[in-house]
């Protein structure tokens, strides 16, 4: 069973925040670009990029009109990408709150800088975390212990099309993920072959549906009482 949504401490009201982490080159930006293209017709979207290469990363997100430039914010982490999503999330929270205040998106994606398996998104920053692994980095990565793989709400194993070329065994990755993650979901994708990442897009749709259900239940329970805004979303 998935955990309840939302639980992030940021109290960002209508927006669901999803963190996307993983090593450099695993396909985080490509995944986000794919999700934006796949979901833009049905959802209002915004993205915070950490440590972006402004030229290439932004181009990837703007290509085919997947996202308008104003809906992308950049955060620099001072060579400490893990700290920026966990120990000191202030700049990311600030950028997210600014996008939420301006666009009230249904979904806000926060891409971490390239991180190792030790990186994990703070619940004070995001509602959910996705971690992306690269098949071409070898088939032992999922088995290595680290909160990135262990705590992620969804593990995305990308570049399955390269498994043969690098002698990586997808079953070893599958077993590693199961050993470290128990029942938590893992999906195997090839963003090169299926840029829209349908399995991940469906996971996001389900997440948003849960959020709407939770919100509807909460409104019913509150029976007309109102709650004020708060947290990082409040104005300074």
């Amino acid at each position: 069973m998935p955990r309840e949504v939302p639980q992030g401490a940021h109290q960002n009201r209508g927006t669901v925040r999803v963190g996307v982490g993983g090593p450099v080159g695993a396909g985080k930006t490509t995944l986000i670009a794919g999700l934006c293209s796949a979901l833009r017709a049905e959802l209002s979207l915004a993205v915070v990029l950490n440590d972006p290469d402004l030229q290439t990363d932004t181009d990837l997100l703007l290509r085919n009109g997947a996202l308008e430039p104003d809906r992308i914010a950049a955060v620099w982490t001072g060579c400490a990408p893990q700290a920026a999503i966990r120990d000191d999330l202030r700049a990311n929270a600030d950028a997210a709150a600014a996008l939420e205040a301006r666009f009230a998106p249904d979904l806000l994606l926060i891409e971490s800088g390239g991180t190792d398996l030790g990186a994990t998104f703070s619940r004070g920053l995001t509602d959910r975390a996705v971690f992306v692994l690269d098949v071409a980095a070898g088939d032992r990565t999922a088995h290595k212990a680290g909160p990135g793989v262990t705590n992620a709400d969804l593990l995305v194993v990308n570049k399955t099309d390269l498994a043969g070329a690098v002698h990586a065994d997808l079953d070893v990755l599958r077993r590693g993920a199961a050993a470290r993650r128990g029942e938590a979901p893992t999906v195997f994708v090839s963003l090169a072959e299926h840029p829209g990442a349908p399995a991940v897009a469906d996971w996001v749709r389900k997440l948003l549906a849960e959020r709407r259900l939770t919100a509807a239940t909460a409104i019913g329970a509150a029976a007309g009482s109102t709650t004020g805004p708060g947290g990082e979303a409040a104005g300074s």
Partner: protein
Amino acid sequence: MSLIPLLLLADSRLPGGMHAHSGGLEAAVAAGRVYDAESLHAFLLGRLTSVGLTCAAFAAAAALELSSGVVVGEDGFQSREAAALDDEYDARTPSPQQRETSRALGRHLLRAVRAGWPSVLLDAVASLHPDGPHQPIAFGAAAAVAGLDPGATSSAAALASITGPAHAATRLLGLDPDAVTAVLASLAGQVEQVAAAAAKAARGPVEELPAVCAPLLSISAEHRRAREVRLFAS
């Protein structure tokens, strides 16, 4: 005065967004001006005795102003004095980029501090400017609600003007962290002198607070806007 709030506010792990800022060190490294422990020492001494003094004086002045008989009234009591400090600090920060950074850090700091020391005073200071108050004003307000005296406030602010860039040097240059500690320790005396001068100045009129700037830091902050590759937020 209890030392514990001072140590908490001076802890570089306080999640106030500071870890991603190099205080101009990244630009100095890129320009080849800082490359080892000795050149780092020179950079830090320059920073401490220029913008460090100004920051510490404004932080101490804000702490002094906001800790003495604060009553929050209908339109945010003390806001006029705090607003004057914020305006004066703005005038001492010629680079638009540095102004933006200082307000972002002030905003970040207040959010971190509000979690530990919730106070209507912090809310009032947060609303001084739509982008947040300047960092030294925010730090002074934090110090006031945490019960620090102006002397402790200026010491913490003076020290903070060099610890952030020093840690950035460890990351950017791969300097031996023990060598960086040695540089910081060797500056302890100068930090105390700057803090004492800042605390003394803080008791004077707002318009006469120190206005020492570091032109090269301001210029390089402006040049950074156009830099394609950067790792720190400032």
